[in-house]
């Protein structure tokens, strides 16, 4: 139909018609004059926020912990079987959907920090994301994000000039006084599977007529009955790769942004999370692909790059009655990039015995996520302890920067 062609055509020429699916990208508008320019490094930093709370125990599984298999039950990863997890050391194993990260890890350019959390200890996505992105110790502070405040502390150089357009949204982590730019790939607007499923579920309780109509519209009849959970809509994995590819290309340019933030949605795996295969595996494959896109797209610049992957909180250690996991606390952070001192799982492992679980249900956080991020910011840009503890992460003196993350 010509009307749709027309609309698509419009989308190509219109920033406002764009939707990024579950991903968005924004970057700093200036080339920083880094303190470390003296040694020829041209550092780049990408922050990837996973919204919805990633199950760290399913992504980097503590297979060596005697309680893990029992708690994670039907979705637990194993070192053998048809889809064996990839052993990172004698204790931790990586999800089989992440071969690229596994390779980077072997090449010593990827690291895992396990049992981390922000200071937030409740279980609201909104508040948890506010804390993660704002860098404040508690929720309710949404004026600016820690990455933006870190940028403010950097000497400002030339304005980025690689023709960026304003993206659909700037994530909180990058909002604030320091000017930013954004870019969004042209994508046909499609709601993701997870959102569609939630809406169908609401309609089934409140509005059966709309439930039927929407289910038919989504062709989710089979998925809605729970026997086929394969994502069919706006392919989230492909979108993650696409956004990463575009962002990497922009960042690789000599006059491109050096610091960027992306968000990927869809990690709230309450039901039918899946183990080595399934919905979470599908998303992790997308994340893995996105990391590979950064590596390829940054080319020679990958050498000086760090990608930080973080999420608002973890999920319950024990699976729930619908083969998923509920909101938890401790989880993982991932680092990837040529500048990462990798090949390590960094963790003060708390153990999964009931007595060791946070509130008897969650992986207990033993590392403050702010320490990890501070360590990366310090390693990449030379920000001082004081700036990090006062401006970037206010009132965070106790969360000391983790040393030795960056080569």
């Amino acid at each position, binding site marked *: 139909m010509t009307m749709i062609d027309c609309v698509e055509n419009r989308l190509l020429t219109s*920033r406002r018609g764009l939707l990024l699916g579950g991903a968005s990208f924004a970057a700093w508008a200036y080339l920083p004059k880094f303190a470390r320019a003296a040694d020829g490094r041209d550092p780049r930093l990408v922050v990837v926020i996973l919204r919805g709370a990633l199950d760290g125990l399913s992504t980097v599984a503590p297979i060596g912990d005697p309680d893990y298999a029992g708690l994670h039950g039907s979705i637990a990863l194993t070192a053998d079987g048809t889809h064996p997890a990839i052993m990172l050391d004698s204790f931790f194993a990586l999800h089989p959907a992440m071969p690229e990260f596994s390779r980077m890890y072997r090449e010593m350019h990827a690291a895992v920090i396990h049992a981390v959390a922000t200071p937030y200890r409740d279980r609201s996505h909104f508040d948890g994301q506010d804390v993660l992105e704002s860098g404040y110790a508690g929720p309710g502070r949404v004026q600016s994000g820690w990455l933006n405040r870190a940028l403010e502390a950097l000497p400002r150089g030339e304005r980025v000039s690689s023709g960026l357009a304003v993206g659909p949204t700037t994530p909180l982590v990058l909002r604030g006084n320091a000017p930013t730019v954004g870019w969004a790939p042209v994508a046909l607007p499609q709601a993701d599977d997870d959102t569609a499923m939630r809406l169908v579920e609401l309609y089934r309780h409140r509005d059966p007529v709309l439930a039927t109509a929407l289910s038919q519209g989504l062709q989710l009849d089979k998925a809605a009955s729970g026997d086929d959970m394969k994502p069919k809509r706006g392919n989230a994995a492909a979108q993650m790769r696409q956004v990463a590819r575009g962002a990497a290309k922009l960042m690789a340019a000599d006059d491109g942004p050096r610091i960027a933030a992306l968000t990927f949605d869809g990690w709230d795996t309450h039901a039918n999370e899946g183990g080595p295969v399934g919905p979470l595996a599908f998303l992790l494959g997308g994340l893995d692909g996105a990391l590979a896109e950064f590596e390829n797209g940054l080319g020679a610049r990958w050498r000086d790059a760090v990608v930080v992957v973080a999420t608002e909180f973890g999920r319950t250690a024990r699976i729930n009655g619908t083969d998923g996991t509920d909101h938890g606390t401790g989880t993982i952070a991932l680092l990837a990039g040529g500048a990462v001192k990798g090949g390590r799982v960094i963790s003060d492992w708390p153990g999964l015995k009931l007595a060791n679980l946070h509130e008897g249900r969650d992986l207990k956080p033993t590392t403050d996520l702010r320490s990890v991020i501070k360590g990366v910011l310090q390693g990449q840009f030379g920000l001082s302890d004081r700036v990090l503890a006062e401006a970037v992460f206010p009132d965070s003196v106790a969360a000391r920067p983790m040393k030795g993350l960056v080569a």
Partner: protein
Amino acid sequence: MARDSQAALVALNRFGFGARGGASGDLINAASDPRGFVKAELARPHGVLLEAPGLQSTPQLGQAVFAYQDQVKQAREAAKAAAEAPSTQAPADQKPALRRNLSLNAAAAEVAGQMADARPADHAAKPEAMQPNAAAPPAAKPAPQPLNVIQKTFRAEALARLQRATLADCGFTERLVVFWSNHFCISASKGELARIWAGAFEREAIRPHVLGCFADMLRAAEQHPAMLFFLDNQQSLGPDSRAGQNRKRGLNENLAREIMELHTLGVGGGYTQDDVTSLARIITGWTFAGRQGQLGVPGSFVFNVNAHQPGSQILLGKTYAQAGLAQGEAALADIARHASTANFIATKLVRHFVADDPPPTLVARLRDIFVKTDGDLKALAMALVDSDEAWKAPLTKMRSPYDFLVASGRLLARVPEDPGTYLNNLNLLGQPLWSPAGPNGFPDTSAAWAAPEGMKLRLDIAAQMGARLGNNIDPLDLLEFAAADAASIETRRTIERAESRQQALALLLMSPEMQRR
């Protein structure tokens, strides 16, 4: 005073355009005095008029189209002449190819510096100032075409209407405008004149009478150049008129038929084919002045006596012996007061506002009021708000795409600055602004708007809004603004449990509380 959130939903959603977010207090005000909240707008009939800087009258807009068409024509002729002339300047192998690729519009642009748009909709969103260059990952964007006067006008009219709907207190009168505008619809897709006139038609023929008299609205609508153009009456010639005898063309019954079938009596309203023919003859000569201005100011309504069928006509059993324009005006005045018209309008109003299957008692009450008051539309609107049926009927009506988009904008407290996104989304959702597929306008039943494809697209658009705007909102606050304690526990939980604010906003906008009215 007791607060009734459920009644507030009826006041805001059934009658209005939904609660505004921010500090409007709409829901609380509506809950405190639901009927008073709706009726407040009825006390301000002049508030229905829409005047915005830059919006022009129908004759001015008609002249702008004529001038634009002349420019395009000149450009085409210039291009043709250039193509036929032996070329001494450009290499021979290049120039003809270039010319072949020159569309009419490009040729026009060369001369007039404007670009026509042959596509069905002029809805491109305003390009942003910053654009990726060729080095950026997305494909380099084609340079945005400058909008021609028709597109500019359409967008300005759309923006004025959207802003009014977004800013209105309750939005009841704006909903009435949309209802009547759709009742007497024209379609912008008919042609350039219809497109440039679509907004002016509503401002000039509909708005002044929304709280006035039906007979006045009927006359204003049928005499408006946009309607005469849309339903071909400007081509209709009385067979025995001076022009009809000189030419091969004759009567066109299109407008006469739709007046009776769609605007007044309704199907089965007691008219015959002979009545259609009679009315068509009666309104021959109702036209508008063309570019030459021989009959009057170009683009204005005129009565062309040379096209008018002379003599008396029998319509619905009554003889109309008046001469000229008065004959048609007398006929319309009678049709406007016909019992079938009273029934048709009452049924349609109740179906639109209350239920697909309109409560017969309420229809009968409105019909009686229509008859008693000689079609006083304010009295009709008042009776609707005063009826218990309208407050008791469950909120089962589906919001039309336009209602849904406006309600979303209101809840997000975002005053549109550019109509592009709205126009695009209306196209996607099957309700292109002022452009219904036929003279019967857009459908008014829930089934039409709750179709599978439509629901899927609505969700995509809601997700888009969530992605763009969810960053800065508290979804639970918005739920409070939208429905307060009338929100179902399931809706509240769904929003509370969303994995992000963006997703929460999409789910809120798609919730039954936001989709039904």
